[in-house]
Each structure stands twice: as structure tokens, then as C-alpha cells.
């Protein structure tokens, strides 16, 4: 009898665990509507998109993570949308700039609805900008704003502290507009976003997925796909297989070695989206032998970019000899980093005061370690001895910030204006992201003046000096732009992609 009772209790325990725990993860529910099932490639009114990590927050003013933006850019609109170098009017009928460049006036579209049914008013824009100004994540973007006022319900006037040319990029098309009432009244803005975008929030299950559904009153018409699920899949192999099996319709994360097999698979589509992620070889120019310009030029000439991309990146990157291209406002396109030339490398090395000592390359990830191994061979060929070490990511970043390193490989993603590169090249960023420890008065002056020059050609001319210093003195060596592999069900049509490396869901549609 005792044994029977024990068995019965054990069974009851297991059953209760399973029934009690059904549903898993906590969920923050916005609306009560259901989010539609898994697409699996069959249901064409829904889509499941794999994301490579869990989101941090859906509060667009308090997020610094790309993955958050991949989700919230479908829920929120900005005043403008930057696409292929042009500014599209999203929430505005028109906008104008004062002659001196210190005042911008935006006339809002009438009848634009938020997901809670309220109409977009100038007060919402003022509220959003004021909120963004106090946010740690957006403060550097909104620092140019002196005052922002609503002159009537549909007119917003921004007064800037001084002329700031990147304003349209860093504020008007960067700061999402939130609903004042919903945001101030919400207990948890992180997971209760109310915007004017094509999709409204349904549900978030931590570590699992985010569900959105089409907002039928969207001012831009009606998005082609109704229900969206962003599901977290951190493993790249599993992510690819999930698309192959049809459990997921789209992913941005696959192993680089799988690109060719995906291209041959007729059931899948692939786009290698060029991103703003600019990757380069950095070294501490305060330290010997990197303080010698001849040694740095020898390194630049000895670097074979294509070999790095082919061997270490399986071809999944776009070679570059500049940090920013003509897509970036302010680009002068005059100077370029030195090309691969072994003879010249040897020539400059002979002129330098390098004595055959071993320099240390530090890597912060497996991918960068592979690059280090390729570089080790390339530099050995010209007579430079280099050893490769891998560090834990936080240690690596901290060492680079503090200048405790010789040479490394790193990447930066700054939006499409040269001015934003001051975070990595201005002397005030030494101790921050200025890993090369470049301290050049001409470069600093060009950054300081550049934001106030309204004439495009003159502005480009101003930034020319930065490019000259970077490439003629080989302060760093640009190698490639990251590409984001977008793999999707072949029946899906991707109409647009953005340099962040992602598509907006409203730009996707099923063709079959």
C-alpha cells in the first residue's frame, strides 16, 4: 500500500509540474488579440522571423541595442525616414530649415493615429524629443536641440544651439515618436510600446518571442502581412535549419560557411545586406613601434583585405579601403588607405625603426582571432613578427579603451554622417572608442567645425583633412564592411533593406 501511495504521489507530482507550468515564460501582454500562429511557410498572413538574441526593451528611447530596433522600428515611426541617402516624409507633410541652419519647422500630417486610437499631435513630438534628451542612449544625438515647441497642434519648431547639419539624420529620422498619454500612464513602457507604426504590440515572452499584429489604421496604408513573431534563436546553425524546415520564415543569422549552400537551395532566398558596420585594424599609435609612421604604412601595404575576407570570413563581407563611403554625409572621397603591395611594405619596414620585436594582436572573439591568424601570415611575409592572443570580450574592450594593447581588429557602426565618427577619432574620445589614441588638432578642429557647415561641398572639403590623416599616416587600416545575411523562404519578397542590416516587416510580402 505504501509503495502504491509513493508511486501515486510521484505521478501526481510530475503531472502537476507539467500542467502548472504550461505556457512557460512570463508574458507582458499589450492587447488581448491573439498573435496568429507560426507561419511555417504555409500561412501567408503571418511571418516568423528569427532574431539572434533576446530584446532588452521596446522603449525606443532607452535602448542601445540593434536587436531592439529590429523589433521596435515596426511599432514606431520617426518624423522622416532615411533611405538610400534621401529623406522620406513619414509623419510630416513638409519641413523647412531657417537660413542660418539653427531652426527647423515640421508640419505634421493630419489624421495620423497612434495604436491607442489617439491622433498624433505636435505635443507628442515635443514630449518625445524632451524624453529623448534625458535618455542616456539618445542624449548625444539630441544634444544639438536647444528648445522644441509646438506652435499649434500640427507644427513643431526645433531651435538648435548652433547649426547642426546632421540634424535630419540624428534627430528627425532617428528619434521615434511616442504617444504622450500612453507613455506617461504606462506602468511598464519597456514592454508596452504605443507608436504610430504599421504594427502594434501584442505580447512579449522573455527570452522567447515578441508578437506584433498589423495596425489597420496605419497612416501609410496597410502592411501586407498581418501577424509577426520575432522568435529568439541564438544558435546560427539552428537558425538556418529552422528556415530550411519552414518553422521560421526569415533569419539574419547563419554560419558564414553556409552562404553558398543557401544560394543553391531553391526553397530559400538570400540577400547579403551591406551594413554600416565598418571593420578595421587598430593599433595604439602612442606605443612603439606603432608610433612610427613608416611602420604603420608597412602594415597598411602588407594587409591583403580580400584574403582576410575569403579565408577568415568565408567571403561574407564587403572589402573597403575607407572607413566611410559616399553614402555618409560629409564624405570627401579623396584619400584612401594604401593598397596591398608587399614590396612597398618591405620598403617602408626597412625605413622604420622596427627591430624584429614581436607585436601582440589581441582578439575579442573567435571571428577576430581567425582574422589575426591570417594577418600573422601576411605580416610574417614582409618580416613583421606577430603573435595572436584571444581575450574575454569585456577585457578586450577595456584594454583597448585604456591603450593596453599593441594591435587588434575591431568594428564600429555609426550612422550615415561623418560627424558621428568623432566618437572614435576625436581626441576627447581617448579612453573611450578612440582605440588608436589619435590626438590630432586638425582632426579635432574638422570635427568641431563640420556640423555647422551648411554647404555640402564645403563640408566635405572640411572633413578631407581627417581622411588625409587617417590614410596617409595609416592611423588605422580599414578592411571590410560587415554584411548581414538575410535568409528567407523563397516565397517571401523583401522589398527594402536598411544599412542597419535588417528589413522592416511592412516591406515584406508573400508572393505565394
Amino acid at each position, binding site marked *: 500500500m505504501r509503495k502504491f501511495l509513493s508511486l501515486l504521489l510521484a505521478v501526481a507530482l510530475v503531472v502537476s509540474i507539467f500542467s*502548472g507550468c504550461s505556457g512557460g515564460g512570463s508574458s507582458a501582454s499589450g492587447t488581448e488579440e491573439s498573435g496568429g500562429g507560426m507561419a511555417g511557410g504555409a500561412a501567408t498572413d503571418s511571418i516568423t522571423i528569427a532574431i539572434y538574441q533576446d530584446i*532588452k526593451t521596446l522603449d525606443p528611447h532607452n535602448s542601445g541595442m540593434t536587436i531592439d530596433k529590429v523589433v521596435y522600428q515596426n511599432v514606431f515611426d520617426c518624423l522622416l525616414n532615411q533611405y538610400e541617402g534621401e529623406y522620406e516624409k513619414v509623419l510630416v507633410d513638409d519641413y523647412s530649415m531657417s537660413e542660418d541652419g539653427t531652426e527647423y519647422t515640421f508640419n505634421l500630417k493630419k489624421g495620423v493615429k497612434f495604436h491607442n486610437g489617439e491622433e498624433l499631435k505636435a505635443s507628442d513630438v515635443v514630449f518625445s524629443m524632451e524624453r529623448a534628451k534625458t535618455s542616456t542612449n539618445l542624449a*548625444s544625438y539630441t544634444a544639438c536641440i536647444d528648445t522644441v515647441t509646438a506652435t499649434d497642434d500640427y507644427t513643431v519648431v526645433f531651435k538648435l544651439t548652433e547649426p547642426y547639419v546632421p540634424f535630419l539624420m540624428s534627430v528627425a529620422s532617428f528619434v521615434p515618436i511616442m504617444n504622450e498619454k500612453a507613455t506617461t500612464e504606462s506602468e511598464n513602457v519597456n514592454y508596452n510600446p504605443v507608436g504610430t507604426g504599421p504594427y502594434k504590440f501584442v505580447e512579449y515572452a522573455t*527570452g522567447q518571442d515578441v508578437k506584433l499584429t498589423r495596425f489597420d489604421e496605419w497612416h501609410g496604408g496597410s502592411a501586407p502581412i498581418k501577424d509577426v513573431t520575432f*522568435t529568439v534563436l541564438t544558435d546560427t*546553425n*539552428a537558425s538556418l535549419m529552422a528556415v530550411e524546415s519552414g518553422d*521560421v520564415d526569415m533569419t539574419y543569422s547563419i554560419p558564414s560557411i553556409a552562404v553558398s549552400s543557401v544560394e543553391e537551395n531553391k526553397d530559400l532566398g538570400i540577400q547579403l545586406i551591406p551594413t554600416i558596420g565598418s571593420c578595421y585594424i587598430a593599433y595604439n599609435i602612442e606605443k612603439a613601434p606603432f608610433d612610427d609612421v613608416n611602420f604603420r604604412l608597412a602594415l597598411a601595404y602588407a594587409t591583403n583585405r580580400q584574403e582576410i575576407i575569403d579565408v577568415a570570413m568565408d567571403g561574407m563581407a564587403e572589402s573597403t579601403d575607407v572607413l566611410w563611403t559616399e553614402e555618409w554625409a560629409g564624405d570627401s572621397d579623396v584619400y584612401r588607405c594604401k593598397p596591398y603591395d608587399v614590396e612597398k611594405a618591405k620598403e617602408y619596414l626597412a625605413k622604420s625603426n622596427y627591430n624584429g620585436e614581436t607585436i601582440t594582436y589581441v582578439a575579442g572573439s573567435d571571428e577576430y582571432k581567425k582574422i589575426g591568424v591570417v594577418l600573422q601570415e601576411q605580416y610574417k611575409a614582409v618580416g613583421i613578427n606577430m603573435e595572436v592572443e584571444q581575450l574575454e570580450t569585456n577585457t578586450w574592450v577595456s584594454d583597448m*579603451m585604456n591603450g593596453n594593447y599593441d594591435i587588434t581588429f575591431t568594428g564600429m557602426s*555609426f550612422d550615415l554622417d561623418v560627424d558621428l565618427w568623432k566618437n572614435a577619432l576625436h581626441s576627447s574620445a581617448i579612453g573611450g572608442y578612440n582605440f588608436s589614441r589619435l590626438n590630432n588638432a586638425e582632426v579635432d578642429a574638422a570635427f568641431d567645425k563640420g556640423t555647422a557647415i551648411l554647404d555640402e561641398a564645403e563640408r566635405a572639403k572640411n572633413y578631407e583633412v581627417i581622411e588625409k590623416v587617417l590614410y596617409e599616416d595609416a592611423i588605422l587600416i580599414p578592411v571590410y564592411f560587415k554584411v548581414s545575411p538575410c535568409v528567407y523562404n523563397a516565397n517571401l519578397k523583401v522589398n527594402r533593406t536598411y544599412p542597419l542590416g535588417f528589413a522592416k516587416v511592412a516591406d515584406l510580402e508573400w508572393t505565394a
Partner: protein
Amino acid sequence: MLKYIIKRILLLIPVLIGVSFIVFTIMSFTPGDPATAILGNGATKEDIQKLNEELGYYDPFLERYCDYVINAVQGDFGDSYRSGEPVFDEIFSRFPTTIKLAISAIVLAVVIGIPIGMLSAIKQYSIFDVVSTVISMFMTSVPQFWLALMGILIFSVQLHILPSTGLETWQSYIMPVFTLCLPCAANIIRLTRSSMLETIRQDYVRTARAKGLPERVVIWKHAFRNALLPVITVIGINFGYQLGGAVLIESIFGIPGVGMLTVNSIRQKDIPQTTASILFLAFIYVVIMLVVDVLYAYVDPRLKSKIIKSRVKVVGSNKKA
């Protein structure tokens, strides 16, 4: 026995203090700061400094640790740097998923492992024994992530019979549970076999057989119970491992478990979340080990009598005093 359990529960306190101190120290003295991890490369030096100040990152280490312990005793383990939510909210939201998988995997491993291990021992050197030994050696050696990926390749991509991700239907549990269970089952098979082989060669088993007891009674009543002792330990350790260490499986199948939460919070330098997650896992692990010890006493009467004897001794010495 009750006194023994209470004593073991009280021992949890120094264990948890020790674990919290070690985790806090490691997280505080490794390079990198939370603001850099949170804000990304768009942030300026001033932004990073401001956020670190807000998070109290620049306060002296001991001050931060003491504050942490004082608040923790009052039930406040802090908010996650990443989500801004209380740390245990996220742990508790993920724990059901983790425990469901771990229990399913361990139950399945026991159901598969013990009978096969026993049969292997009883029929030593038979075909069954050889095959089961080879398979269990293979399952022990093969990495779990490989099993998981092969499972997805065959059952999701090729055959389309099981989902490759999520935990929405009962079918979606099959692959993660089997992937977690198989290496553990293989361990149990090997250990049960060797333990049984050792036991059935003991004198008392020979005596039982000589008495003319049926083989069934000899195996079940005399050999099995004694052979089970080391197996229980392995089951306990595996269960503890599956609760916190199934990170690879969670990442491949897109399962939001406590293991993934811990790894992500370490990467993002989320000190409160990391400390709380590891404390929680340490707590669960110690509790599991306690249950294993109690089970030992239940299965092995010799241990039970030892515990009782030691209690009698203590009482006796008190009387003398």
C-alpha cells in the same frame, strides 16, 4: 533524520553567502563596465560614466557587496541592468521551462538507463550487453550540440515531423528532451551495469542464491537496491547540471531557460542578474544534493542507522555532562 535535514538546510546559508561573494567579486574585478555593455558604441564617454554612476558601479567593492547582502536578506536582490525588472521575476518566468525539460529528461534517462544497465549486467558478455555498451559509450562521447543539430537535420529539415524550435506543442519537447536525456541515460547505463556486476559478485548474493531463492528475488531484493547507491548520485548530479548547464540545448532549440539567462547576463555584465541566477542555481543544486542524501538513507538502511546512532551518541554525551 529531521535534525539531519534541518542541519543541512542551515548549511545552505554559508554556501549561498560564499557563492554570492565569489560571483560578486569575479563580476566586479573583471575588466569592462555595465554601461559600455548596455549602451553600445554610439555612446560617448560621458554617457558611459553617467550610467555607471547611476548603477553605483564606481562605489567601493565592499560597500556594494554589503549593500547587496543587506538588501538580499530583506528579499531585494536588485533590478536587472538589462531589463530594469526585479531579477527574480525573470528567473521565475524561465524556471518552469527549465524544470519541465530537466525533469522530463531525467525521468526518461532513468527509465531507459536503469533497466538496460541491469540487463547488461545480468547478461554480461551477451549480444545485448555488447550493443548497449557500445551505444552508451557513443552517447557519452558525442557532444550534445551535435546530437541536437543532427536531430533537427533529420527530423525537422528532412522528415518534417518535429518542430526545430520553440516549446509550443508536445512534439516540440521531443528533441530537446531526448538530446538532454541520452548522454545522461548512457551514464546511468554504464554505472548501473558496473555497480550491478560488483554487487552480484558479493558474498551475500552468493549466499542468497545458495539458500535457493529465486533469481528474481536475488536480483531485485538483494542486489538491485545496493547497486543503486552510486546511480542515485549520478542522477542527482545530472539533474543539477540540466537545471543550470543546458545552455547549448537552450540556444539551439530557442528555449528561454535559466542557463541562457545566466550566460547572457554574464556577457552583458549584468551583475545583479548574474549573481541572482547563480545563487538560485546553487540553491537548487544544494537542495537536490540534500534530496539525494536523504534518498541514500532511504535506500541504504546502513546509512540510516549510522545517522540514528550518531544522534544517540550525542544524546548520551549530553546526559553524561
